[in-house]
């Protein structure tokens, strides 16, 4: 399979002060046609990675190619291959929604008639026709993001970059945007999506790379990543008081793989759930147990196992 994006040893240092190592050697290969999720907490280096791929950030060292074009050597050519939706509303405030689409097409060298046609087509496709004459300030957050996606693919790029596209959106708009992203697959557009929502990465991505502190920790399909955890069940115990001694007791229960401290209690990973809960509750009885939650491993579990900390700060 051919690669849509290839990152080799990407390093980015900001001179500062303070001097910041945003990326310490990122390697990634995104295949053509896939939806690829870059999952990590804020400050992990997701936006810097996307910034380099989209010609807005210069790497300190390393190489990045999009559709075989070196993004540092030939930014204008690379830009023809990419569409970008950043986490901010970057719609042109002086232009209407239709004009935002129309002039984007003009920037990519389309003629007047072709640009008008493409803008109308996108308005229709993204259900924005009734807002065509509105100014960006008049749109809700969900519609802004929808317009930004429409604009990003207006010049028919091969690769679409979405940087935290649903941050700050209400649940309904979030779902609508997810559907749009899933629709990109049908258009044959490769998508690189950054997010700090593990459910978003899980639901949308063919493959996920987990990134933290400027490096990629793992990269695989969501299912394979969750299998790597080696547990079927995750139990979260919410406790009060001194429960330090409980951890070692829980470890002795059959099927329990690992017990780790989690905020306000303990997290327990087990290979089977048969009879598990009763034994766990029994062991915890002498302590002040406030709540028990059972779940399957998620990408968050994977992240916690890899880094010892939660995704959200």
């Amino acid at each position: 399979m051919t690669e849509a994006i290839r990152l080799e040893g990407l390093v980015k240092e900001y001179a500062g002060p303070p001097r910041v190592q945003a990326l310490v050697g990122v390697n990634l290969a995104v295949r053509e046609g896939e939806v690829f999720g870059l999952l990590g907490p804020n400050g992990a280096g997701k936006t810097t990675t996307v910034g380099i791929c989209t010609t807005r950030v210069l790497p300190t060292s390393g190489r990045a190619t999009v559709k075989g074009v070196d993004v540092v050597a030939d930014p204008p050519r690379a830009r023809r291959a990419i569409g970008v939706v950043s986490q901010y509303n970057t719609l042109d405030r002086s232009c209407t929604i239709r004009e935002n689409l129309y002039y984007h097409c003009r920037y990519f060298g389309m003629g007047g008639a072709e640009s008008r046609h493409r803008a109308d087509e996108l308005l229709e496709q993204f259900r924005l026709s009734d807002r065509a004459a509105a100014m960006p300030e008049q749109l809700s957050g969900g519609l802004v993001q929808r317009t930004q996606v429409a604009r990003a693919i207006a010049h028919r790029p091969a690769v679409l970059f979405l940087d935290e596209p649903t941050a700050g959106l209400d649940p309904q708009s979030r779902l609508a945007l997810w559907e749009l992203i899933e629709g990109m697959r049908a258009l044959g557009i490769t998508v690189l999506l950054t997010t700090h929502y593990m459910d978003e990465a899980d639901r949308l991505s063919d493959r996920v790379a987990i990134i933290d502190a400027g490096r990629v920790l793992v990269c695989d399909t969501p299912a394979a990543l969750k299998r790597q955890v080696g547990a079927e069940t995750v139990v979260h115990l919410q406790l009060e008081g001194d429960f330090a001694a409980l951890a070692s007791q829980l470890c002795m229960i059959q099927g329990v793989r690992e017990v780790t401290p989690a905020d306000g209690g303990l997290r327990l990973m087990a290979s089977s759930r048969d009879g598990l809960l009763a034994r766990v509750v029994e062991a915890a009885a002498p302590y002040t147990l406030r709540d028990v939650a059972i779940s399957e491993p998620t990408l968050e579990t994977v992240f916690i196992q890899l880094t010892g900390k939660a995704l959200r700060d």
Partner: protein
Amino acid sequence: MTDHAVGGGYGGAFAGLLRRDARVLVRNLAPFLTRTIMNPLLSVFVFAYVFPRIGQGMRGAGAGGASFATILMPGLIAVAMVFQGIAAVALPLSMELGATREIEDRVLAPIPNWLVAVEKIVFGAVQGVIAGLAVFPLVYFIPATPVDMHVASWPLLVVVIALASLASGALGLALGTVVRPQHIGLMFAVVVVPMTFLGCVYYPWAALHPIRWLQVGVLINPLVYMSEGLRTALTPGLPHMPVGLFLAALSVAVLVLSGIGIRAFRRRTID
């Protein structure tokens, strides 16, 4: 930069950027004209209409007997052009690069970033020319005293207007990219006001002779060369700076301000 790219590939995008700015200008024509006309209208009204009629103020004693309106006319056109550089380029750019980041879609157009900056200069210049033309009838017809104007050399006038408007656009780019958005208000006090008052707008440069240090000091101000250039081209009867001097100085101003602005633009748009 490769030849094929500038000719074929980049032309369309560059034209697209110009079209976008033209569309925005047409939509905002009323505010554009208001901000362009207000300062020269009131200046010419007070200095060249009210003052002569109430027998007060400047009567151009130092300028060989020419009416103050004649001295003022080229200067006010020059100020109107410089104001456009700031109002049409610096202020919007400061917003677009800062709080709203809306420059992003244009920076992601398939052309080098420096060309996006050049487009800002070019369109700033276009607006400068329009502003100059809009102001011309005001400064010619409102004064109560006769304005002694005739174009001695059309080619000189065209070159002066072209250089002056490009310098205004380049100044706008430089200020819009170098000055932090939170200091953009301060820019008026620190840059715009001194530039106007010390820009040979209200007096010809030659008339500063008695204050030698000032006559030399103002040479750092690009507005001086715009005023003097227009004075030479429109009111040749007044004393003015040598043609070679202001043409050379305006060219240097265009190059230096563009250089500063383009570098700063790249720094602001590429991390």
